[in-house]
């Protein structure tokens, strides 16, 4: 499954457009990690636990998106976009969406 945020992909052409495929996940942070991040808040800097959390969540969103695209019979997802929304304190929705297409080598 090819995933790209371009409308085209080098060496291939789009044969069929199948619609929008999307995948999302809502994640909350771990209490222990949040406590350490609370201490980090005093001095600033990177909150590594959060970076990892968001990265994992995004990977899962992409995975769900590609699963949906596969179910539609696609072999690529093009023009992928990411959106993050914070729903309540400590929870965020991560969404990935794109166009499910079938591509073939030129």
């Amino acid at each position, binding site marked *: 499954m090819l995933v*790209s945020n371009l409308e085209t992909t080098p060496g291939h052409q789009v044969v069929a457009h199948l619609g929008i495929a999307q995948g999302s996940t809502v994640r909350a942070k771990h209490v222990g990690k949040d406590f350490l991040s*609370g201490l980090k808040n005093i001095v600033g800097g990177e909150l590594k636990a959060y970076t990892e959390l968001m990265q994992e969540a995004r990977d899962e969103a992409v995975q769900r998106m590609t699963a949906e695209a596969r179910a539609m019979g696609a072999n690529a997802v093009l023009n992928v976009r990411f959106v*993050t929304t914070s729903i309540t304190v400590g929870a965020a929705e991560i969404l990935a969406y794109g166009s499910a297409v079938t591509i073939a080598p030129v």
Partner: protein
Amino acid sequence: MADWRIWLDTAGLWWPLLLVLVGYGVGQWIERRHLRSIRERELQLQSVVALNTRYIPAGVVASGSQLVSGSVVISSDYFKTFVAGFRSLFGGRFAGYEKLLERARREALLRLKKQAHEAGASLVIGVRFHATKVAGSTTPAVEVMAYGTALVRPRA
């Protein structure tokens, strides 16, 4: 005599100030160290070019593409938040936050470039930036993400 009790009774006054001072000292140190590290890695990854154009530049031969991304969650410190609190009364530039976001953007782009480099690509196109406020308990934290498509050169 219980002189120490006065400190205990006035803890509500000096404790936030202490946090602001610690935030300033350590925060500035972390910021300087981070910026130095960013500059070093930017030099190392000079060979990877990131563009936000959507089309493959003329003359570039690519056999495949791969989605690459880089992200970072970065927190403000007590000092910056304290200053920003006053700033919001009068308006104007939030210099501390500007620097914070600059660090986050450069870091995210560097991580994207690193991922592209590891995938054997030297050109990333269609780069987009995306920032979200991640709820911090007291001081704001922001996540900055950069994503784009790395063009993989055909194997010689």
